[in-house]
């Protein structure tokens, strides 16, 4: 459990030369930086001057007698501390006070194997290693996260992947990119996080709302994408990853370069580019499923132990084609799509991306400053800025052919600050505040009525979280948070819709005026006050076994989509209606973790989540338009219960052979209506066998994934088919059959003088199985991806 870190502390003491006699004495006290307690048996040696080593006594006191005047360099070492170096110019007796950093978890520069640093003591947390992140570098964040048990994804095709934690996604999952809460229109089911996986140093998932420092509304959980800290030494290094992807006939290139200095300065630049053409299902081309993606980031700053700052900027741009066959104009098109085995449009392979498609650009800028106070703690102050611009192009005609149907610009400023008291060993208390302003602008030039209106949103939060070690075995944590949120929108409603919703009775006071084309301009202003809290306990008697229990109360204010949606959603052939009356939803989640590590180990994590006033979309009715009849989906609130179990097992059979087994089960129920919740991931089992040897770090793994059929789905609905002239059953909720896919990954390292070349070969869906997944919104139209082979070269230098 001992780690070695390097820190250079420079102390310049000004003296004038008075004598040359060797009778000077250095005395001093070595203490803990945080709580000022004396450190016993710290060693002090004079580098290059003497072989003698001096030790501190029980009061942390030391004395080095009979020294000549001159310049000395001291090395101060204490077990479990950072070794300190100190330069002194001695010309008379000198008394020193030497604080040493005694809290290892503060030094996140190197994460020591087996001593994982967690954000909470008791919540269910899991971290992806850099190696895994690199392997998924050519895929999306959501794909990488599926390595973590209990995390699945809500897809729109293969390129739009929204992470789902314990059956919940969207606004219920917070994504913190480099300490900044992503504001990238996460409310939409077809809006994926705008994050370049390659820019991440580590990715962690906290399943549930227990990490209150990040937000009080993480009913699903929190995804933390973090940067690595850099060692303070003069160095320059980097890596380049080139990936070839067979399915889609494209690839990705990513490169980064880091320069560090021993005085704490650093700069890191990173850039990536990805291009894919149409991808393919086993028996046909998935037309219009190409991707273009550009990511770049720059980090720079000066970080020392006592204080530091960091500036970051990242850019992400993606253009994603959406399966041509998924464009539907009427309910009959949808009926046809569901009944047909093949998509209605199959064109030859192309790299061109046509409509429907999305084009999204995200800018993120951040400046963070921290200062540590001796014997007290650490202060963080952060300002961040985000700009998210989203264009969605539908299949349109005439003059509007090249105009987007959706053009939204979301701008967010946030200022956060927290202070962490860690002076007392085994006790951390963090108190923080957050202020955020957000503006959404919906461009009217689209010529399409706005799906999301213009709005200003103001958020403020205050929180306190605590971690406490009672003794060697028992640890506690607790937290409390309050969030205030205000949304001030300006929205046009058709007068017919306004009356149909009954708003003329409840909201007549928010109408500003009526326009010539029978629309009301309204100004809805809503306030939400939310309290969240968490408490948990962890018990572990040795390094191998641990048990924890956590309870989290979370409240989430409705998002703009849930409040304001109003219109026909072409990709789903349905009319989606928000409701101004929707209130915050409240979740009570309890989870238990049992963990064993060693040659073989397991993690067993059952949980239950009761959500009151759960906000969800459900089919209610049918409305007739000139294009035919469309099912109406309305946002409603109900009480829901999600039960689940994540189980993972591993065994190291020999030094070379290892097996991993994972099982995840989620059951969601609408307890008010006594029927299943929609979009709950089906149970699945993954089994993996891997072989590795030290020779070239060779590793080969074969994984089997079996996904059961989701048997618990809401009832299908009946709609009137104008073509068939009668009501027909629309099997919109029926889940696809179970499926089984095999994948292989293998890798080798080749070491050169100053660099390492890693070659990875990954194959997914090896048997080229045709399947559809319940959580893919395009499952009505086409099969999922067929076989894919990915060859990756990584050069570290």
């Amino acid at each position, binding site marked *: 459990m001992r780690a070695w870190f390097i820190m250079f502390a420079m102390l310049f003491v000004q003296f004038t030369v008075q004598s040359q006699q060797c009778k000077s004495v250095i005395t001093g006290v070595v203490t803990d930086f945080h709580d000022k307690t004396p450190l016993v048996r710290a060693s002090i040696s004079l580098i290059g001057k003497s072989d003698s080593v001096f030790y501190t006594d029980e009061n942390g006191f030391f004395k080095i007698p009979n020294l000549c005047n001159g310049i000395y360099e001291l090395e101060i070492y204490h077990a479990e501390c950072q070794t300190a170096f100190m330069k002194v110019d001695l010309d008379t007796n000198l008394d020193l006070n030497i604080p040493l950093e005694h809290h290892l978890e503060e030094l996140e520069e190197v994460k020591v194997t087996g001593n994982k640093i967690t954000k909470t003591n008791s919540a269910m947390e899991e971290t992806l290693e850099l190696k895994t992140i690199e392997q998924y570098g050519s895929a999306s964040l959501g794909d990488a996260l599926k390595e973590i048990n209990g995390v699945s994804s809500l897809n729109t095709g293969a390129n739009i992947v929204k992470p789902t934690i314990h059956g919940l996604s969207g606004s219920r999952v917070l994504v913190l990119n480099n300490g900044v809460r992503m504001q990238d229109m996460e409310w939409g089911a077809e809006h994926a996080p705008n994050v370049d996986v390659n820019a991440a140093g580590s990715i962690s998932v906290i399943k549930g709302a227990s990490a209150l420092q990040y937000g009080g509304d993480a009913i699903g959980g929190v995804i933390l994408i973090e940067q690595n800290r850099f060692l303070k030494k003069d160095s320059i290094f980097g890596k380049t990853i080139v990936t070839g992807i067979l399915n889609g006939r494209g690839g990705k290139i990513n490169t980064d370069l880091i320069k560090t200095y021993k005085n704490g300065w650093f700069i890191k630049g990173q850039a990536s580019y990805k291009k894919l053409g149409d991808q393919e299902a086993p028996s046909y081309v998935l037309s219009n499923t190409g991707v273009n993606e550009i990511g770049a980031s720059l980090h720079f700053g000066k970080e020392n132990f006592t204080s530091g700052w960091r500036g970051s900027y990242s850019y992400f741009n993606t253009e994603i084609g959406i399966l041509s066959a998924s464009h539907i*104009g009427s309910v*009959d098109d949808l009926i046809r799509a569901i009944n047909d085995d093949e998509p209605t449009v199959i064109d030859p392979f192309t790299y061109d991306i046509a409509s429907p498609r999305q084009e999204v650009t995200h800018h993120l800028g951040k400046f963070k400053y921290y200062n540590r106070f001796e014997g007290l703690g650490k202060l963080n102050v952060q300002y961040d800025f985000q700009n998210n611009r989203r264009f969605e192009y539908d299949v349109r005609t005439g003059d509007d052919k090249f105009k987007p149907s959706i053009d939204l610009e979301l701008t967010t400023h946030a200022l956060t600050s927290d202070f962490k008291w860690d002076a007392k060993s085994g006790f951390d208390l963090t108190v923080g505040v957050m202020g955020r302003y957000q*503006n959404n602008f919906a461009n*009217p030039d689209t010529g399409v009525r706005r799906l999301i*209106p213009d709005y200003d949103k103001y958020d403020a939060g205050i929180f306190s979280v605590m971690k406490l070690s009672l003794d060697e075995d028992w640890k506690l944590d607790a937290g409390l948070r309050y969030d205030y949120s205000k949304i001030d929108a300006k929205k046009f409603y058709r007068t017919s819709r306004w009356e149909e919703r009954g708003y003329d009775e409840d909201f007549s006071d928010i109408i500003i005026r009526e326009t010539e084309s029978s629309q009301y*301009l309204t100004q809805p202003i809503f306030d939400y006050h939310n309290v969240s809290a968490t408490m948990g306990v962890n018990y572990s008697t040795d390094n191998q076994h641990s048990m924890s229990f956590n309870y989290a109360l979370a409240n989430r204010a409705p998002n703009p989509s849930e409040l304001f949606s109003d219109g026909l959603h072409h990709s789903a052939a349905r009319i989606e209606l928000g409701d101004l009356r929707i209130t915050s939803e409240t979740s009570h989640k309890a989870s238990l973790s049992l963990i064993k590590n060693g040659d073989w180990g397991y993690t067993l994590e059952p949980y239950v989540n009761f959500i009151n006033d759960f906000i969800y979309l459900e089919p209610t009715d049918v409305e007739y338009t*000139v294009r035919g009849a469309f099912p109406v989906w309305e946002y409603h609130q109900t009480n829901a219960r999600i039960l689940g179990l994540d189980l993972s097992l591993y065994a190291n059979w020999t030094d070379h052979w290892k097996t991993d087994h994972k099982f995840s089960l989620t059951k969601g129920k609408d307890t008010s209506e006594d029927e299943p919740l929609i979009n709950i991931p089906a149970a699945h089992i993954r089994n993996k066998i891997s072989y590795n040897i030290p020779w070239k770090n060779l590793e080969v793994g074969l994984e089997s994934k079996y996904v059961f059929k989701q048997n618990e789905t809401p009832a299908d609905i009946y709609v009137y088919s*104008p073509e068939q002239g009668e009501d027909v059953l629309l099997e919109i909720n029926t889940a696809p059959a179970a499926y089984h896919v095999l994948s292989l990954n293998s890798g080798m390292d080749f070491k050169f003088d100053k660099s390492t070349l890693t070659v990875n070969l990954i194959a997914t869906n090896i048997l080229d199985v045709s399947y559809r997944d319940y959580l893919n919104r395009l499952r009505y139209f086409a099969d999922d991806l067929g076989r894919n082979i990915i060859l990756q070269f990584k050069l570290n230098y």
Partner: protein
Amino acid sequence: MKTTIKLLSMLAFAGIVLASCSDDDDPEEVNEEETITTMTVSLTPDAGGTAIILKSEDSDGDGPNDPEITVSGNLVANSTYSGSVTFSNVTEDPVEDITEEVEEENTEHQLVYVHTGAISEVYNFDTDDDGNDLGLSFDLDTGDAGEAALQVVLRHEPTKPNDGSLSGVGGSTDFSASFAITVE
């Protein structure tokens, strides 16, 4: 470093204030231009006389109100009618004629006619630039007296040429209306 913090917070607040006061104006209203609110089918008897007008109009577009469907009169049994169809958007002032757009992009459109009951045939369609059926004008034959239904569907990006059935035509629906007609 204190000055850094001050500077930072000032910057942050400046950003917030600037962004906040950027616009207090009301957003611009959007009127969907490409919307088709109205389809009018005129059936003129070849034997002479007043045309029968079939009309479907939904002025609130995708709003909650159902389209209003009107049929101006009954058809005569065992006769031939010349039919023509127009599309318009009545929410525009003046009313926008969408028929022109369909004619301009005639290869990307097709009207499909589904009939039951006392209508015996719909045929003799006008053609697009490639010589395939367009369907803005047509002939209609009635059979013996009785009830009939005529569904008229405007399809966008159809598969051409085709057999004239809805499934054969494919594409996506721009407008669809069903008329209940009495043949006497």
